[in-house]
């Protein structure tokens, strides 16, 4: 299911509260993807991502179907984001053997797990490789330092005598070329196909949670 432009409003929230299958499916796909991206940026393990996603959706559906609902349906996404923040914080505290950290403390990274396994495919790698090969040697080296070496951005800029804006524009153009190549071949953007599995999991999760909430 594609997650094309979709506005949240009172009607969407009402349909979700009533268990409308299409809205349930959209909710599972959209926020499954959102939580994945959010937790990927924090390098949370895939297992924990799945746990946080299920718990977040369960709490949101509980609020809608058994609780007071949401006061600002037009900001429903923001509401789900807050719930996921709370869930993540609780999971972090529960999993930690140490005293709770301040909110400002950066999350510890676990570099042993491959967070990107679900979005890396051979075909995409070929397309990205083609995009990279079209770049100048200098631009390719910049991206290599960013993605592979994970070097400090200011160090990269100083070393290759570019500014941060150049780096961002370079990444933006490379990303756009990748999208063009993908759309040309598949007729759809990679993010639509990206979360196909996540969509299935998300929908199954919402269906299960719906049944669970009704049974209770």
């Amino acid at each position, binding site marked *: 299911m594609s997650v094309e432009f979709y506005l949240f409003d009172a009607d969407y929230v009402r349909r979700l509260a009533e268990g409308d299958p299409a809205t349930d499916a959209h909710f599972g796909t959209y926020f499954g993807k959102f939580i994945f991206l959010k937790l990927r940026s924090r390098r949370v393990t895939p297992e924990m991502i799945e746990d946080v996603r299920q718990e977040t959706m369960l709490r949101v559906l509980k609020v809608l179907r058994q609780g007071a609902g949401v006061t600002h349906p037009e900001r429903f996404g*923001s509401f789900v984001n807050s719930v996921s923040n709370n869930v993540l914080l609780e999971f972090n505290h529960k999993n930690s053997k140490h005293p709770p950290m301040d909110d400002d403390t950066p999350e510890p990274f676990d570099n042993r797990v491959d967070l990107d396994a679900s979005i890396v495919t051979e075909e995409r790698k070929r397309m990205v490789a083609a995009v990279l090969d079209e770049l100048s040697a200098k631009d390719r080296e910049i991206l290599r330092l960013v993605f592979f070496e994970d070097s400090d951005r200011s160090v990269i800029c100083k070393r290759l005598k570019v500014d941060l804006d150049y780096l961002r524009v370079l*990444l933006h153009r*490379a990303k756009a070329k990748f999208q063009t190549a993908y759309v040309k071949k598949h007729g759809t953007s*990679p*993010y639509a196909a990206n979360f196909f599995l996540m969509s299935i999991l998300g929908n199954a999760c919402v269906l299960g949670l719906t049944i669970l909430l009704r049974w209770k």
Partner: protein
Amino acid sequence: MEVMDHETAIQTKASERYAIGDLSSIEREAFEEHFSDCTQCMDDVSLASTFAANAKAVFRERAQAKPKPSGAFLNWLFARPIPAFAAIVLAAVIGYQNMVVIPETKAPRSVVASVTLDGETRAALPQVKAADALRVQMPFDRPAGSANGSGELKGSEELRFSGELKVYVELTDTLGNAVSKGAVAAPGPNQPLDLYFPVRLNPGRYTVVVRADKAGPEIARSAFEVTSQPAKTQ
């Protein structure tokens, strides 16, 4: 919590920065607050993240696929056998020179006793042992009329280096082949010509010829014999 507006997200390229972890924690949370409600930005983040993840995988594979230096050297050798063979031979020669020849030349040696050659008038030639280094002394008379008022040799201007007068010396074997040759400093008046030849000679008869210059007139000539037996006392 602050929420980033859509315009700011576009202008600051927040999607790309989010995908590569280039936002501060405050910016990141503000942007998450925005794209949780904005499908366009979420798709943009998704695309940037997909590109970043696959680019990282591509660079990782390329780094792993780079041949090791030793493999590259072997590939070069097998791809170009003739230059490779020449390079190996050259390396062996240079190695031999550096490890054997040059150290030998720098090693201390005993002074070699000189053999006096007194021209070709003697019936019995002076003898030199084959294994010995060759150092000879021979009389050096400036021919009558060949010296000018300052005692210099005529016809040897091309052998004058840095003001020092030179003569041309040639060591030849029985067949007349030059074994060693070159210019040496001429001795002073009433001094013998003292020569050292850095060669090992086989048994046989040899002749030392001294000329004013390479193609000039012969000034002196002496013969000697190299034997495999210890040199006889003269």
